């Protein structure tokens, strides 16, 4: 029963080989979907290209629904999987700062790695920026250490918070995503007529 490595079914020696292989698949999917171009990515914010929303929401549906099936068939012990801890105040602020970084830089970290691979200098500088930013954060850390650790709710899920079963959440999200696909398709059609300086 999964997860395989934590349960010792695959030994830790394979860990880094698996990391590279999963990374290759990740990078391939990001690049092939068009995320090696910042102009494709930010299209989601201006309405001329919703590829980010389509890929992201579809992936979330598959993951959420998939986890329910893996649990149902007894393939995966959900109590053993990592749940990102919630520190709601710093994570909210962090997300806002990343939002600014996203619209100004046009990439997020993973997509910038794939864009460097195909020769984008802007992506290279974005990654250098990441490095500088994390360096600044580390040096300045004592100034905001208390804030960084504030709002700690532990490793909670939406189910823990609301009492709603995860399978209902997955179903609800699926409907939200389908509605979003349809609405954004209509918006995109309208806005693309007005945009000439961009190849689709």
């Amino acid at each position, binding site marked *: 029963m999964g997860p395989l490595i934590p349960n010792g079914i695959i030994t830790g020696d394979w860990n880094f080989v698996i990391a590279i292989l*999963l990374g290759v698949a990740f990078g391939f999917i990001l690049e092939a979907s068009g995320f090696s171009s910042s102009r494709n990515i930010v299209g989601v914010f201006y309405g001329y290209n919703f590829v980010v929303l389509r890929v992201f929401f579809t992936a979330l549906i598959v993951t959420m629904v998939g986890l329910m099936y893996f649990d149902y068939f007894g393939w995966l012990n959900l109590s053993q999987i990592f749940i990102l801890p919630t520190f709601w105040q710093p994570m909210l602020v962090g997300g806002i700062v990343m939002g600014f970084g996203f619209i100004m830089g046009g*990439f997020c*970290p993973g997509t*910038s790695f794939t864009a460097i691979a195909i020769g984008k200098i802007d992506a290279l500088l974005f990654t250098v920026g990441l490095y500088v930013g994390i360096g600044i954060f*580390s040096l300045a850390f004592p100034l905001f250490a208390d804030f960084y650790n504030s709002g700690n709710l532990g490793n*909670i899920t939406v189910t823990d918070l609301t009492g709603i079963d995860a399978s209902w959440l997955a179903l609800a999200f699926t409907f939200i995503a389908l509605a979003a696909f349809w609405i954004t398709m209509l918006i995109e059609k309208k806005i693309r007529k007005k945009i000439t300086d961009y190849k*689709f």
Partner: protein
Amino acid sequence: MDTIKKENAPHYINPYLGGVLLGMLLLLTIYITGRGLGASGAVKSTVATTAKIVTPQDAKANAYIGRYITDDHSPMYTWLVFESLGIFFGGLLSGVIFRRVGKPRIEHSSKISGNKRLIFATIGGILFGIGSQFGRGCTSGAALSGSGTFAVGGIIVMFAIFGTGYAVAWLFKKLWI
């Protein structure tokens, strides 16, 4: 006109296919490792490694980076560093197959100069780097892998990133369209 457009159009896979593949990959990753995907963690390891080499004492004493510094192995020896190397090579593989690998170049809107694009790319990277530390991960580790596993923090980060993007998009419109 249509044929010219088609020839010049970049060959991307269908976004819903991309999403299904990405979701299946994330499921597989969780099934094997018990955790999701990530990207910013590898840059954090690089910062820790630099600190360890340049100023070993300060690096160990640093309240944030210090916990990644050990005597027995380099901070580069982590799962996310290997995975991120994979991301690069996976991107390269796709770029080769779909013929997008080219000379070093700057992609920018015709309304701004290449230098302006580079300046904003750097500032964007710095902000994303800082934000990802407060956010306990970036779009991959927090927003995607976190939300996919129903983690409240992941959903907060996802809404904060995209909500902010929409809220301030008009300020940076000239950079893109």
